[in-house]
Structures are given as C-alpha cells and as structure tokens.
C-alpha cells in the first residue's frame, strides 16, 4: 500500500501536468504508441507508401513490354549472390540466365549462361542510370536503386512474357494502394454528404436517405461491381478504366459509412455539452466546427483506415476474375490473375509473390486500424 503511493508521489509533477493539459489528440497518440502491433502495422505501411511513391526509383525496369527480357520468360527469381561454383567476391552479383518453355518436357527449362566454363556474373550496380522517369511526377531522373550493366536482374523472376516481376510488383503496389485510397476517399465524400445531411437535418430527409441507403445495401456489391464494370467500354484506356474503378469502388461502398456517420451525428447532437454550447449562444456552424468535428475527425480517420483493406481486397478480387483492371495496367489483382491457372501454380510458384505483398499490406492496415480505433475509443472491442 505504502509503496504504491510512493511510486505515485515520486512521479514528477510535470508529467502529471502534461497529462492534465494533454488534448484528446495527445491522449489518443499516447494510447496508440502503447500498442506495439499497431505501431508495427504503421511502420510496414509506411514502407508500402514509400514503395508506392518511389516505384520508378525502386523498380529497375518499367515492367512493360519495352523492357521485356525475351530470353527469360517465366523465369524463376534470381538469387543475389556473393559466391558461386567459381568462388566468392565481395560485391553482390546475379547470374545471367535463360528460360524457355519446352513443349516436350511441358515445363520451363532454366539455364545459367556460362563464360569460359564459369557462370556468367552480372554485378549489381546501385543508383544505376537506366530508363528516365519523373520522380513523384515532378523531378526528372534516370537513377534506379539497382540494376546490372549487361543482361537483366530479376529478383522476383519474370512472368510468362518475360517481364520483370519485381518491377511489376512495385508499380502494382502503387496502383492497388492508390485505387483503394481514391475509392475510400470517394465513398467517404459520398457518405459524409449523405450521412451528414441525414444526421444533421433529420426529419423526412433522413427517412428518404435512409430508405435509399437501405436499398443500395441490400444488393450484394459484387453483382453491382459486375454491372458497373461491364459497362466500361472495351476500348477504354487504362487510365479511364483506372478512374472508373475508383468511381465504382466509391459508389458501391458509401452506404455503410454513411449510416455510421449519421448515427454518430444523431448521437453527438444530443450530447449534453453540445446542448450546453447551444445554450451558450453558439451558432449551428460553431457547434459543428468546435464541438462535433473535433470528436468526429478521430472517428472518421479510424473508419477510413479500417475501410482501406476492404477496398484493396475489392480491387484485387475483381481484377483476378477479370472484372477490374486489365493488362497492361499493373495491380496486385492483375498480377495475381496470371496464377489462377493450375498450370501456372505448378510451374511458376513465384507468381505468388504479389499475394504476399497483398497479405502483408492488408494485415498491416488492419493492425493499424484496430490500434487507432482502440486508441480513439478505449472501450470498444467489436468490429462491425
């Protein structure tokens, strides 16, 4: 008993004062920091965002037909080596390899090229100048994180067209994350509008919006996706399909969030401190800005992060069955589409690599979202 009190009185006064003068955001942050898994999720996620932002720099090739390696179709991943049968060296290198389909064997034949009876080494070059691009769409550059002077380097192997899978995964990460991001934002704007109007105005407007929301909710989204994506003309460009997809993801997914926003607003409108503000002469605008939004913001951020993995899932699932993005666009779903054939699975298991990226991304988003939610509302434990 006494030692417990001791520890508390020993606590520096300043720390206590920090707690007392900590805003809800600061408390939120300190609670969040305590959750290791969520922090891990956040860290992994920032890596993904880094990949999405700097895909051109990270990828040695464009991943498109212009950097195709015709001698290495459906080639397995190349190991970064320091040693081979000819001995060791300090600088990392890869072997120059070829791969081609043998109709007789019904499999791909991989060979390591040799020079003077020794495997052909291709030393890795860092910050290697190759294809030009604009970093973040602004800064012109031709540097890539790594590359080889002659031949090709394929860390994740190549696909059946001989395109570098590593580069493709980098670009696909960008596409999948950005499409999910835009989809989430769009559905967020729609739900904010519908939910906000319903929750703030109430009355028959609320009833009408609720009825419409229920109608959209009762149709399973996939048939809706199908209907909407089937409407894309076949001759649309990749960009058009890309934006149409974000539109579809946004259009289909707003009702759930709209409902939550509505009930949140309805509940917080009745909070006593909001009533107190009204009686203090605060205008409707002031109540929204000073009292409803600050609480709402953390709630919304949590909701958005929690929704994110579902949109990634949607894009991937749709693209796998051929309803979403199509080649030559690169997205996780498009890359995974190649592996749905039994043959691909047997012969080229490295086509699974995008799946690992997908799983890790969804997992870290979920961890982060759960952590944020727990930090925002320490007493909620149920997802639904």
């Amino acid at each position, binding site marked *: *008993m*006494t030692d*417990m*009190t001791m*520890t*508390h*009185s020993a606590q520096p006064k300043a720390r206590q004062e920090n707690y007392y003068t900590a805003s809800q955001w600061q408390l939120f942050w300190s609670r969040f920091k305590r959750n290791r898994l969520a922090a891990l999720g956040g860290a992994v996620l920032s890596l993904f965002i880094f990949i999405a932002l700097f895909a051109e720099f990270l990828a040695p090739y464009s991943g498109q037909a212009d950097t195709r390696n015709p001698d290495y179709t459906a080639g397995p991943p190349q190991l970064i080596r320091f040693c081979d049968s000819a001995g060791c060296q300090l600088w990392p290198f890869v072997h120059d390899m070829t791969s081609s389909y043998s109709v007789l064997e019904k499999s791909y034949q991989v060979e390591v090229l040799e020079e003077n009876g020794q495997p052909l080494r291709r030393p890795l070059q860092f910050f290697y100048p190759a294809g030009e691009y604009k970093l973040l769409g602004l800064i012109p550059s031709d540097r890539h994180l790594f590359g080889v002077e002659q031949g090709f380097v394929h860390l994740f192997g190549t696909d059946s067209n001989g395109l570098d899978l590593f580069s493709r995964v980098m670009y696909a990460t960008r596409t999948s994350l950005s499409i999910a991001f835009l989809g989430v934002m769009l559905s967020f704007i729609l739900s904010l509008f519908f939910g906000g109007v319903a929750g703030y105005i109430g009355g028959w407007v609320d009833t009408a919006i609720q009825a419409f929301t229920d109608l959209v909710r009762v149709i399973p989204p996939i048939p809706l996706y199908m209907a909407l994506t089937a409407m894309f003309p076949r001759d649309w460009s990749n960009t058009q399909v890309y934006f149409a997809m974000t539109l579809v993801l946004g259009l289909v997914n707003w009702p759930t969030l709209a409902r939550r926003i509505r009930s949140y607003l309805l509940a917080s409108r009745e909070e006593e401190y909001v009533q107190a503000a009204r009686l203090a002469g605060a205008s409707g605008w002031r109540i929204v800005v000073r009292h409803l939004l600050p609480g709402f913001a953390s709630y919304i951020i949590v909701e958005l992060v929690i929704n994110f993995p579902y949109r990634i899932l949607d894009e991937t699932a749709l693209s796998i069955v051929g309803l979403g993005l199509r080649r030559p666009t690169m997205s996780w779903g498009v890359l995974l589409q190649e592996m749905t054939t039994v043959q691909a699975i047997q012969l080229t298991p490295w086509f699974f690599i995008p799946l690992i990226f997908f799983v890790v991304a969804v997992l870290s988003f979920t961890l982060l979202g759960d952590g944020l939610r727990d930090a925002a509302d*320490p007493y909620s434990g149920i997802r639904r």
Partner: protein
Amino acid sequence: MATDPLLTVSNLSVRFHTDEGLVTAVDDLSFALQPGQTLGIVGESGSGKSVSTKALMRLLPDYAELDANSHIVYQTKKGAYVDIARLDARSKALKQVRGGEIAMIFQEPSAAFSPLYTIGNQMIEGIRLHRDVSRDQARKLAIEMLDRVGMTNPELRVDQYAFQLSGGMRQRAMIASALVMRPAVLIADEPTTALDVTIQAQILDLLKELQQDFGMAIIFISHDLAVISQIADDVLVMYLGKEMETGPVRRIIRHPQHPYTQGLINAIPRLEELDRPLLPIPGDIPSPLERPTGCVFHTRCPHAADHPRCHTDVPIPAQTQPDHLAACHLLTEKVLEETV
C-alpha cells in the same frame, strides 16, 4: 449481541488492475454481521462500499484481485463455517452461498433483470437452484412472494418482463427474486437511489417489514446517511476504501467521533434545521490513483495540519465505546490518555 456473528469479515482488501496501474478499492476492511442485524455501509463515490459487498459474494470482475490475507467467514444455515474468500470459484459451496445464503439486490433493477426472460422465469431459476421444488411449486412460490412484496396482480406480473414494470415495481420484483431464495443475509446495494422519495419511502418500509417476517440480516449500502439511519442498526462509514468509523446508528449520528463522519453530517442539508448553514468538507475526493499516505482523509481533514502523524501513519480503529470504533489518530491519542 452475544450470539456468534453470521458473517465475519477481516482484513478485506481488493485491488483493481487498471491501465494506469494497481488501484486499491478496498483497504483492510473488517466488520461482523449478527443474525437479524441491519448494517448500513455509507460512503461517497469511490469509497469501495459496493466493491466490498460484491467481494462478499465473490462477484468481483476479472481485473479485481482479492488480497490473500482477506477472510470472509460465514456461518451457513446448517451451522458450518466457511471462509468465502477461500472457496473455489466453481465449488458447490460458493453456489450455495450465492443466493441460498446471501442474496443481493441492486440499484438498477432494470439492468439486473435480463429483458429476454420474464421476471417469473428468473425467479424460478433462483428458487430451483436452492430449494428442491418442482417448476410448478417454484412458480407458486414466486407468485406468493410477488404478492408479499406488494405487487398487484402477481399472477399476471410473474409472466411480465422487467421493462413492462415501473421503477418501483421493478425494485419490488428484485426484492422478491432475492427473498424467495430465503437467504440469511440480504445485501442491498443502493436499492433506493434511483427512485423518487415517495417510492423510496415505500421500499424502505417494505424492507423493514420483510426483515421482521423473514428474520434475515441486511447489509444496506447507501451514499445517503439519512436513508441508512432509517433502516440500519449499525453503521460503517467508509472513505477511499477504508473504514473510518463504525458503531450503532444513533451514536454515529448524534456523537460522531471521526472528523470525516462529523464533516459528512454537517454537510447534509436537513429539514429539521433549515437555518443552519451547510458546512462542506473542504477539498475534493482524491483520485484513486493518488491515494493519500497516512490517514487517507488527511488531505481534507481540518485537524490534520496540526498532526504530522496523520500524513505518515495509517490510523488503527480504536474503541471509543465498547461497540463504537473510529480510525483517527486524534482519538487514539485521547483513548490512550484515558486508559493511562
């Protein structure tokens, strides 16, 4: 009071594991309850009055920890002694204690009855757990008891749900559901706090009447000393999980010994003394995380400034009268003087 006590609580301590650390909810509490006696436990929020009675029935939540030195010795109807604090959580003996020996009524009967089952269903369940009767007999007993607690149309009420009843009727049903198991001790946890004064008066009268009939002992918890004074024989005053003062109700109210009890009585507005100014106890109740050292009341005690001991040493309850104890250094000193 020469009989053996029905319930002897000694050194009861309960701690909660919280995110902010270990919080002491009840600290070294000891008291005894005689058969047929009504003990009132009075205390403000955070005094641990409700936690300590939940501990008597081992109804504490998972994050609560009962101190190893705590003893809750109870004499069963059959005359055997059990230490409830030592009973296995799944033992038959504990199940018998819960309901069969000690029953409990709560502040919010609307939350204490499940809305999915009728009142009768939940009463019959309790009866059949403790008395060897058929379903029909149990139902009859339930109806009789509902009638006994003053509910109109008991045959109809038995098949109603708690949400169909008014607040007062719900509390009556709650009392009926506890007493129908014929407990030797009834723990009433703020049973009238949520009710209007007129209904509160009805319920207090009813409890007194039922105690006469059934002869059970009652532990009545309330934050309102006036309510306690109406029903209790003896009072235990708690503050921050500690026992401050205990004794017969009249002595506590007329001659309070502990500065906290004195402060409490001076702060209560009374109809009998309309012109007397209200004297608040200075300061605020400390947060459970910042438990004061020494006497837990010293941060608000008007005498503590002159007595450095109050800041450092925990006072031990001392007898001022044979049945009147108070835990205050000032009294201990005085008592010592007297005996010398």
